[in-house]
């Protein structure tokens, strides 16, 4: 009887663990929407593009790319370079982008782009994998979010234009929220946007309809790659304005900047 119990338990454990493995393989795609599928011209490679939502907005947007060989096996160590691109006829420009690292996590390469305006964009992606190199251009229609999530100012310190994008909180609560924004400096011809680490940011949340703020906020400080992290406290739900002041080397680079958030 004891033996039987032991056998059953072992069997159960094996079945459970194998089930788990399946789940792990499936997981990355769960909660993600496939928004593009195609092949890389001049190679036998296939790409799939994933996002948390089907519609894309002018905001800090994170994507996941899967690269597969002709047989459909995932490739773990592709080199990927993404360039967001907008052709406005009279001029072309790019947008801030954070390219993926060299190896995939759960078969996916994660990257982020900040669409600085609405309209028709392309993600121009160069892929090198299995000694093959090719490119794919994925069209995206970028819509305006309910409240602007990317804004810019011209620094009174150096005359350059800076873009700053809202990252967190994505699901705000009444209480303490992690707050994260990213700041990018505009490069020549608006074709590159190097991350900025030079700013000292002042944060002051405000409820415009009532004229009050909230206590004990932590102003975002630079944590790497142009990302600034702090804490924002909401004392109630409703429409909040997160007032931001950007200081650069002791000079006020951008003032009266803000994001609005409503929940």
């Amino acid at each position: 009887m004891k033996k039987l119990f032991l056998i059953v338990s072992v069997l159960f454990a094996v079945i459970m663990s194998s089930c788990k493995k399946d789940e792990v393989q499936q997981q990355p795609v769960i909660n993600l929407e496939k928004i593009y599928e195609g092949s890389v011209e001049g190679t036998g490679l296939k790409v799939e593009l994933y996002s948390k939502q089907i519609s894309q907005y002018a905001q800090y947007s994170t994507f996941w790319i899967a690269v597969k060989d002709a047989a459909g096996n995932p490739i773990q160590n592709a080199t990927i370079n993404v360039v967001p691109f907008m052709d406005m006829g009279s001029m072309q420009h790019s947008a801030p982008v954070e390219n993926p690292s060299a190896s995939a996590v759960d078969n996916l390469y994660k990257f982020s782009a900040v669409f600085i305006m609405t309209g028709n964009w392309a993600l121009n992606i160069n892929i090198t994998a299995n000694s093959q190199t090719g490119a794919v251009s994925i069209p995206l229609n970028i819509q305006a979010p309910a409240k602007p999530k990317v804004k810019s100012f011209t620094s009174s310190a150096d005359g350059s234009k800076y873009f700053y994008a809202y990252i967190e909180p994505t699901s705000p609560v009444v209480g303490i929220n992690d707050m994260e924004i990213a700041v990018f400096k505009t490069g020549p011809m608006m074709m590159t946007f190097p991350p900025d680490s030079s700013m000292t940011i002042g944060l002051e949340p405000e409820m415009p309809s009532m004229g009050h703020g909230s206590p004990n906020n932590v102003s975002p400080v630079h944590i790497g790659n142009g990302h600034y992290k702090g804490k924002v406290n909401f004392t109630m739900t409703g429409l909040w304005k997160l007032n931001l002041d950007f200081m650069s080397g002791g000079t006020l680079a951008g003032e009266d900047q803000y994001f609005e958030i409503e929940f």
Partner: protein
Amino acid sequence: MNKTIIFAIIILMAKFAHAQNEDSVFKDSSKIVDLTEVTVYNSKKVNKATDYFKSNQSATLEDIMSRLPELSLIKRGPYGMEPSIRNLSDGRINVLIDGMKIHGACTDKMDPVTIYIEPSNLKSLEVESGGTGSFSGSSIGGTINMKKDEPLLYSGKTFSGIVQSGFQTAAKSFYEGVQLNYSTKKFGIKGAATYRNSSNYRSGGGKIIPFSQFEKINYSLSLKYKLNERLYYLADYIGDKGYNIGYPALPMDVGFASANIGSMSLSYSDNSKKLYTWNLKVYANSVVHKMDDTKRPNVPMHMDMPGESNTKGFYAEASYRINRHQKIDVRIDASSVFLKADMTMYQPGELPMYMLTWPDNRTNQAGIAAKWNVHVSDKSSFMISGRLDGINSGLVTTESKSQMSIFGYEKKRNDFLKSVSAKAYQKAGKNISIISSLSYSERFPTATELYGFYLFNASENYDYIGNPFLNPEKSIQAELTGNYRFGRSNIKLTGYYIHVLDYITGMVNPALSVMTIGAAGVKRFEQIKFADIIGAEGSLFLNVNKNVDVVSTLKYAYGKDSENNPLVAIAPLKSIVSVRRTFNNFYVQAESEMSAAQNRVNKMAAELPTNGFAIFHLRGEYNFAFFKLNSKAQFGVENILDKNYTEHLDWGKIPRQGRNFYIQLKVAF
């Protein structure tokens, strides 16, 4: 100078006999405890003290309390006044119904527990002041316990009842009441209902005070069953609903308020046993309270502010006679109070703004108390009592914890409270007795003081924020009472000193931005080193002759904090004198209420001085038979001179009722 006058007056004034007879102290030393209790017995027995307190049949409990020298009332509206014992209120005192805890559901204290008891259901009102009043709950200010009437068991009548009706002119208010009692030898059931409906009242001089209306219905049902000669079972329910209750001193009214209060108890008494009485009660109650600003003009932003409280608890009390001279009372109790209040504000075109004003919190308490009564001789006795409480309090939902994390509050807290008091009775000479007491007590901070989230105080025009790191308040108190009896008359004088350590009060916090539109700033509850209240009360019951009685009370208190600032809401010198001439089945009674000005005000609390006043009332009562039924008509006029006045504890200096004629009829069958 001032003081001399005060003391001179005190010596001249004093108190009637509380329903207590000083001599009884000798027979049963436990009565020492009752000496500071003022007991108002309901109807039946003709009791002049009762009539004095219950000035007329439709008097609310607030009217009665306002005539007790130990009590003052904080007024925010014509209804729902908050009692204070010697200028200590709210979390500093216990307000109990039959020993049960009930917590209001309103963050603005619009619903003190005293509104749930109609005087027609009241058997007695017990007030124990100071640290000696901690037997049934940790407190520093004392205890007000409202004892409810129980059903009668068979006493010659199976069915009995009372029907009452009344009208008052100042607020065009109606009062209707009915009580029915059905009983057999083993079983009694009593139902009662009271309906009050009041319009905006007319203040002295004729101005109508807007938003002073109210409507409420109170109903109760109780059942008593005799298990045997010594053991009774009692089940009791009180329901109370209020509608459209105006609060002229606040920016909003109450749309709807509801309370459900239930209990079951067993009580035993057998005087031949050592354990001669015990009482066990389990109870539960819930209060729902919804504030309403929809009827107010010029509201900058409409908001909903509902609140709720849920309390469960039990207590067991027993009295044990050690020998002829000593007895011990013991009480064990536990309770759990859940509170939640929130606020939703509506700005057109935006999502609603929602926050918790009392973030969901629960306070659990378990305590044990004992009193040792020693009857030393016919001339002296003493009592020593103590109480210990374990209290656990904290936020209970993710939502409330998340919100309060802004101020770094997360952990539950555990506290241990101690109270101890000693009281001695000494007869000095034939007619003089002296009662002295000394006590140390502690009290737990209130939910508002711990967890309140931008609660607006309309009197100070400040938002208040709780502070969960507050320590329990501690108090040392001393009290001395002298009682002089002559014939059927009696003078009583009491002096007391209350020293509160770690006194909790609001302090301006300039770092915080106001939530309420138009508020002057934000205060956080903090503790100052100490606060002192010194005061005196006097009462006189003078039996001039068979037909003329004089009852008079007087009180005065002086409060200051450790920075020498006057304490907020200290009632000024006040005296009530009542003279009654009794005829056969008729009496007339003339009364004066006089209050000195209060110029010692707390500027930090935006308190303003209040003028003194004197007002006069005339009352009469006529007893007659109506179809052979015992009937009573009462009539009178209050504030005869139509004086425009406010009391110092009235918020917003809203004038009180002007000249008011009233008439009520009561028929018993």
